[in-house]
């Protein structure tokens, strides 16, 4: 899903933007993943 948009940013050598996107999305999705795991555990499904 992100292959082409990432390639477009890379082609334009916008590495700072790429870095910001990767760090921000990794952090936010990590928080969401941990929150989801905690929620599933809290309702006794895991």
């Amino acid at each position, binding site marked *: 899903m992100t292959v082409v*948009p990432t390639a477009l*940013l*890379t*082609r*334009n050598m916008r590495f700072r*933007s790429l870095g910001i996107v990767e760090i921000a*999305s990794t952090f936010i*999705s990590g928080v*969401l*993943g941990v929150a989801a795991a905690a929620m599933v555990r809290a309702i006794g499904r895991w």
Partner: protein
Amino acid sequence: MIQMVSLEAISLFLILCITGLPDLAWSASAARRLWSFGSRLMGADLVNYVSGNSDKFLSPGSLERQPLGLYSLAFRVLQLTLAASTQVGRVVLPTFARLQDDRERLARAFLAVTESVSLVVCPAMTLTILLAPIGVPAVFGEAWADAVVPLQLVAAMTMPFVLISNMGPLTVAVGRPDWEFHWSVVTMVATLVSFPVGSSGGS
């Protein structure tokens, strides 16, 4: 699962915030050009995947459990270098591509990148070779002392590996993904032949 899906969705959202929505248009000639270039690159990536993971297919059948563990520990050194070289490749490909019409500057850029990467990797690998006899037992325990020689061999092999690691981005940048594909096939055959020979001859 939620983490993976949200990672993709958030990345896409953030990139679109930066670049804006692309224009939707279809061009048959652009698609043909892309296929001609991309199919060779995809072929090279597939072949590289096979040769890069051939040890995982071949080693369980050809190595006992203990040598497999020692090899696995030693191979982590190369994995770390591979991860770093992948990131370098992401940056150097568009840089080389911009210089593709000026071969003199391209050659200088290639040498500068290779020099810089070697300047970091070669001393680190030399230190690994020299310190492994003390470092491995100290960090992992005496039980892993037999991993010293495999670790030294992998560290020694990493240095020439790094020297040629920018050849892929270079050939792609000058519009010759077919060279990259042919080179990948040669290295895959060499890997598939040499691994069983090496493992049967002892580590």
